[in-house]
């Protein structure tokens, strides 16, 4: 009798294993499990039948049934896992992408090259101890001219090609120097400021002229400031911004609001001093105008020009940006073509 049971169980186990092998998916396995181990399953029926055996045979029979049951449970679980894993692998395979297709960009905006250059320059000067000050673009003749030692009729005033507001004594500032005057009018020395901003000249637009453009000017006034300090500060600026090996040339010039006045030239970045078209063969590029603040300017804002001295300089942002990025025509800055603007994404 036990022997008959053993054979039936063995037969059941072989049958279930055969079915498991044939199972195509987890659903088939589940069906097999229910059919075998479920409430009405084949093995469950065998277990229930044990109670009808004679008492002496029951322990042995129970042992046999349990043995097969745990073997089948293991086989079912193994097959289930096997099949489920295959399913996942297949699903993942189906989900594969062509990673060379372009990503979905949100289209981050870019900074304008003039802002980039302005910020870079301001950053260098901040590290040297200058703060940033700004002022209005529509100015009084006093701030733009008189206080800067440019009285009416002064040749420099004619050369500035000023744009005037109709019907009132106002003009569009021809340089950012009036901001320096406003700063000095509002505070006593020492003064250490850089003034970025838009300025205006009555120029017909062409590849190198625009009726509006941008400047950065700086001013440092204190006791004992000399041309030597000016020279150091501006050469230091060139080395910080363009690199420590860039050669400079500092030569006399003229501005009504500085005395002595000078211009700082920088070794041509394209030909390194050999002479090329960009530098008109000279090997030098004009970088900025500068000088010691004219005593008349200090006096105009009520500073003691015997006690205080200072230096000032000014430079054009467009020119620096044109050289830095190889922009051949100043009008490209104001055309706002996205083909141009998007090139500055990495700046």
């Amino acid at each position, binding site marked *: 009798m036990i022997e008959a049971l053993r054979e039936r169980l063995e037969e059941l186990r072989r049958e279930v294993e055969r079915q498991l092998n044939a199972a195509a998916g987890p659903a088939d396995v589940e069906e097999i499990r229910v059919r075998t181990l479920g409430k009405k399953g084949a093995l469950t029926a065998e277990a229930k039948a044990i109670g009808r055996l004679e008492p002496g045979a029951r322990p042995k029979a129970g042992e046999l049934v349990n043995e097969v049951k745990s073997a089948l449970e293991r086989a079912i679980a193994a097959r289930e896992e096997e099949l489920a894993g295959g399913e996942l692998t297949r699903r993942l395979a189906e989900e594969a992408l062509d990673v060379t297709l372009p990503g979905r960009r949100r289209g*981050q905006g870019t900074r304008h090259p003039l802002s980039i250059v302005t910020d870079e320059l301001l950053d260098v000067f901040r590290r040297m101890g200058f703060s940033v000050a700004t002022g209005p673009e529509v100015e009084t003749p006093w701030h733009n001219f008189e206080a800067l030692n440019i009285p009416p009729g002064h040749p420099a005033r004619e050369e500035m090609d000023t744009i005037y507001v109709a019907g009132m004594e106002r003009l569009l500032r021809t340089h950012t120097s009036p901001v320096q005057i406003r700063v000095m009018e509002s505070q006593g020395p020492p003064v250490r400021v850089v003034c970025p901003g838009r300025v205006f000249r009555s120029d017909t637009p062409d590849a190198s002229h625009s*009726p509006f453009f941008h400047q950065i000017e700086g001013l440092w006034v204190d006791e004992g400031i000399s041309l030597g300090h000016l020279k150091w500060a501006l050469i230091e600026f060139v080395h910080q911004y363009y690199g420590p090996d860039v050669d400079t040339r500092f030569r006399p010039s003229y501005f009504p609001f500085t005395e002595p006045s000078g211009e700082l030239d920088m070794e041509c970045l394209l030909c390194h001093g050999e002479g090329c078209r960009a530098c008109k063969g000279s090997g030098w590029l004009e970088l900025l105008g500068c000088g010691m603040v004219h005593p008349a300017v200090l006096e105009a804002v009520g500073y003691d020009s015997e006690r205080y001295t200072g230096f000032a300089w000014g430079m054009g942002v467009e020119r620096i940006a044109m050289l830095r990025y190889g922009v051949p025509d100043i009008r490209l800055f104001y055309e706002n073509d996205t083909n141009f603007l998007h090139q500055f994404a990495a700046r």
Partner: protein
Amino acid sequence: MRVSYRWLASFFPPGSLDALPPEELARRLTRQGLAVDDVRPAFAAFTGVVLGKVVQAGPHPNADRLTLCEVEAGDGARQVVCGAPNVEVGALYGYATVGSRLPGDRQIRRAKIRGVESQGMLCSAPELGLDALGGPEGIWPIGGASEADLGRDLRDVLALDDTILDIDVTSNRGDALSHLGVAREVQWLVGEELVLPAIRLVESGEAAASRSGVEIEDVEGCPRYFGRLIDGIRVGTSPAWLQTRLVSVGQRPVSDVVDVTNFVMLELGQPLHPFDFDRLAGGRIVVRRARDGERFVTLDGRERTLDAEITMICDAERPVAVGGVMGGLESEISAGTRTVFLESAHFDPARVSRTVRKLGLPSEASTRFARGVDPELPKIALDRAAALIAEVAGGSVASGRVGAEAGERVERRRIELRLSRHEVLVGKATTADAARTALESLGFGVTSGRGDVLTVEVPSWRFDVSREADLIEEVARLEGYEAVPASPLPAPPVAPAREPRQRAIARLSEASRAAGFDEACTPSFVPEDVLGAGTAIDNMVEIRNPISKADRFLRPFLIPNLARAVAYNLKRGAPRAKLFEIGHAFRRLAGEVEETERLALAAGGARSPLDWSEPHPPEYDFWDLKGDLEDVLAAAAANSPRFSKGSRAWLHPGRQAEIESGDGTALGFCGEVHPIVAEAWGSERKLYVAELELAALAGPDPEMRIMEWSREPAVERDLALVVPSGDLAADIVAELWRSGIDHLKGVRVFDRYAGPQLPEGHYSLGLRLTFEADRTLTDEEVDGEMNRLLERLRRERGYEIR
């Protein structure tokens, strides 16, 4: 200012400039403050051209238009075929010998022309690269050359081997607008005294004063005025040496008399003016102020209206020249002029400058007078020019000058120069000896030197030197800026941080870029019809002297130019364009200009960048704009901004909003551009724009403290209200918040629907409410609150649930 190297050298003893070849001289002058922009040969290169004389000329046997010439060039006559109509026997020409090379890589060979051998060529001026010279056509007779020079290289005869230095003379240095002025700067470099040109004046005949006279009424405008008479003039072309010299520095020869006045101006710096004496009524000159409204025809043929600030040169009856600026048509030198009245005067710089501006009439003379001409120069220049005119135009100079001056000698300024001050300002000490040497080489007089202080007398030609600092610059620039040691700045121990305003602007810029806007930079000018649709904008600031009609006003806000830039990009095929700009805008306000800083946004085209997974993205719309704007406002800490319906005529009447902050401060506006305006701005597609005032947004960093939030799970309830079409979403949401129900933490619109299932004139608004507490809320509790809310909405507003 174009300077001839040879001309410059003529101011020094021969050989003085040898150590300073042109390139080196240019470098040194630049370092001294006279920036040399360019150094180039004065004339085109050619070789093998000598001075030749036509000794015989006859017809060519085989051609009517050709002439057979015998040309003597010092070593026997040669036969030359010439095609020019103006061959003259006995005249001197440039003779290009066989083997010579002309400009344009042209080589002259022995040739047979119509069967007759020609050994070389007689040259026209253009063939020698001297386009500005010679007659209207034909070969160029070398006037004024000597037969002793036959066979000599024409380059030597005419001194063509010269170099031009193009000097960028700064506006303070009127004195350097002449070869004499530049020579004074060179004096320091060569260490030799300069030699002024010799004046070989021969006076003859009746005194000028017996036939002419000068009366100065406008002493302020013209403190000095002198004249000379030159009789027996035969006006013609200048000798070749004079023509080539003028041409080398960019001056076009006119006639011998005029050429001499230009020559002396370029040589010494004194502008001169020649009158046809026979056309001066009464033979007299009266210098007076013009009468207001008086009219005058200048040399350029235009009639000008004058005023009392203008100095006029008149004869006994009428004006003949605008003083220091330009002569008149009627008294101009002509071919028939027999007697010249030559003017040499000094005019007030400010008055000349004003006259030039008023009449819009710059000239070589006025440029110099406006910057200041040496007041001691008129008599010297007058004599120099009179002698030269007599020499080249064959006249005789009448005895004596006529004229008048206010004070025989110009008072010279004296300035004290403290060596200690020099050291403070320059950062490098100098000695009394060094300063004296430098100043004296420029013509300054050093009258005394006691200890620290030098007393310096400023020469009459240096208008620009009036203070100690000016003298310090003179010494510093001659000693060289390169000699000034660079001294590190006494910098503050900690570099300054970014200013709050700069930080705020950087934040706004960053937020705009994060929202997909590229930074733009647009013009400050707009045309009168900014909106292009006839709708005027009030109180725009007008420009008195605009560059063009399109630039007549200052932008009243940034949008027009920015939106045009968006339209420009879309038109050029960009699938989308989103631009922002931070800049100034201008309005007239109570007789003043109100200038505000703005942030403007403009967008159009596709909502998102082109993407293969969404080939047809929706167009950017009002909600995209408002969302972008809300992101930007959040970055400026302008939270819970309020949008209300706007009414600007140039925006879509139903798609625009005014924006204010939570506390009611106006922030700006936004909307869809009216289709008519968009079209005027060049866009067929919809344009969306916004403009914000920075003053309200770019304040100092606001204080902030974080707020607590519940970590208990939130409970959500959706609500679809059926409301009348006129009720605004924002008001409904506000009503929910006002309802006073407990634990409400969030209200979000998730749907808006209008359709046939709803009652006429109603729409449905889907709202998601979030409830939170510091404990877990039960469904019953939340349902209770919802019922209270619905009851209230029904009662207060008559809203139904959908």
